[in-house]
């Protein structure tokens, strides 16, 4: 029993065995380890929650929060009636939906394929290369994209022109902008996304594969009957987490890549709030939008978790 190691001190401590005082004394060093974290999270993560009330007030930067008058749901009413808001909301859902449909399976497929590579060196070199895009920022990638997709100097358009067609202003064209957003993000994050699936794949017992091989199953069938079910839990958890993020991703990317010509399709909630709320100092308005986002995200999280459980899977909670 671990207690015995400190048995002598324990007998001298005040309070009944098992009481709070007892534990506080026994593990007081450990509490010191954890105390900075508690303070930290209280200060930086929980304290802001107190100020969420701004969304229900008319907050001016010159006054303190308690001085600002209550306005109930007025900010939300304004928000829902704002012209750009609905477009931004729609775009956010749409773009993230595309990202999910196209972007979620790709790391999974790549991981499975990667798992098949026998030559260790080849595998390692490939992994090194495909992880690289994850590490540069969107500001940098945006710059690279501007160059590569440029109307006159960019290689992509030069290829298009040499094939006899008209050059496309990708970043200024409403028809292509969302595709650029989704594809560039896939380029950036797919390689990195394979890591967690690869890790899960290594957790599958090799005996399962051997048994299947003995029974005559080819590699394809092994994939579908062993690999995929083996990492099912991980896939589901990741999927649920992604769905919960449905309103969240992509601020830096969209901010860097968007311009006035594509706002109608390229504005997401975050950039909309940034532009109208922050740059115009409409803080209550911006906070209301933030609350709305959180609300929808929580909804999606719980809904997809329920759905997963309904299908018989473990889910997140």
């Amino acid at each position: 029993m671990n207690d015995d190691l400190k048995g002598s001190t324990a007998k001298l401590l005040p309070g009944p065995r098992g009481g709070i005082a007892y534990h506080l004394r026994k593990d007081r060093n450990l509490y010191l380890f954890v105390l900075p974290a508690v303070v930290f999270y209280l200060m930086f993560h929980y304290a802001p929650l107190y100020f969420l009330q701004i969304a229900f007030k008319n907050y001016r930067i010159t006054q303190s929060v308690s001085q600002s008058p209550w306005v109930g749901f007025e900010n939300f009413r304004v928000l829902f009636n704002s012209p750009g808001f609905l477009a931004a909301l729609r775009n956010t859902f749409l773009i993230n939906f595309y990202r999910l449909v196209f972007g979620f399976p790709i790391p999974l497929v790549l991981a499975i394929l990667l798992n098949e590579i026998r030559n260790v060196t080849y595998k390692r070199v490939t992994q090194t290369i495909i992880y690289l895009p994850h590490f540069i920022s969107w500001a940098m990638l945006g710059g690279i994209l501007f160059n590569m997709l440029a109307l006159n100097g960019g290689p992509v358009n030069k290829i298009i022109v040499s094939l006899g067609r008209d050059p496309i202003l990708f970043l200024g064209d409403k028809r292509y902008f969302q595709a650029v957003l989704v594809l560039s993000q896939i380029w950036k994050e797919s390689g990195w996304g394979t890591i967690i699936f690869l890790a899960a794949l290594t957790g599958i017992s090799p005996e399962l594969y051997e048994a299947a091989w003995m029974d005559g199953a080819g590699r394809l069938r092994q994939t579908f009957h062993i690999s995929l079910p083996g990492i099912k839990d991980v896939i589901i958890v990741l999927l649920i987490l992604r769905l919960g993020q449905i309103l969240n991703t992509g601020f830096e990317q969209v901010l860097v890549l968007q311009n006035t010509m594509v706002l109608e399709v390229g504005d997401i909630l975050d950039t909309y709030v940034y532009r109208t709320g922050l740059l115009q100092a409409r803080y209550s308005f911006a906070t209301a939008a933030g609350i709305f986002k959180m609300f929808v995200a929580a909804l999606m999280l719980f809904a997809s978790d329920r759905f997963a459980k309904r299908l018989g899977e473990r889910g997140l909670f």
Partner: protein
Amino acid sequence: MQGGKRLVVFDVCNYILFAFLGLIMLYPFWHTLVGSLMSYEEYIRKAIVIYPERPTLLAYREIVRNGEIFTHAGVTLFITVVGTLSSLFVTSWVAYGLSKPFRGSTTILYFIVFTMFVNGGLIPTYIVYKSLGLIDRIAVYLLPSLINTFNLILMRTFYLAFSQELEDSAKIDGCNEFRTYFQIVLPLSKPILATIGLFAAVSFWNTFFPSLFFIRSVEKKTLQEYIYRIVSSMNQEQAVASDVVVPGETVRLANIILSALPIILVYPFLQKYFIKGIMIGAIKG
């Protein structure tokens, strides 16, 4: 997976696929690098950029002459070094504590993980920072990033798997938790520290948001926001479908190369560390 030792058509295709993917991942970097080494005329002239006919450091000289990049690089370098070290220390300190069973450790864990799902949003965070006096101070890059919940969980998982015998023998020798931590646990944590350290360093190097929202003085802005300004100043012309690629295109590329250089240089060497680290964290977690 079992499949015999023969190299099948599938395998060949697989190898080709990843070679192709590797090319796609690398080409934009190559293009940027080579483009930055060209003269402006040559850049417009050529189709696919493979190598510069007449390599020149013109673009880089322009940047150095202007000099602004150094201010921002300095800021970013400072917060990367200081931020990574401080964050590593605090995070591992807390993670170690959390990996020990004690009354309330689970509660505190939930308390922390909960913040991953709920946060105050931008404005409330801004207000908190303002009341703490962090606005427009370098500390705003460092203080709120001291503990990253995800990294905390990873480290805790690592410490959970830590050999109990080592710690027990230390305790028998009379070490309290602090000495155990500093003299035994910490030196043995090198792999996870390297992993988390790399994540943290990259994250600090790429700092953009705080610079945009919480910092007003230009000289305190980070490298990434500087790049963003350079890049977006061209954006307007791009969007208006100008006939001419704005002069300085190569300069823009050179800026990007310079800011990405540290990452790209360091990256291959440290890659093996963080793969291991993620594997540990992911499997057990």
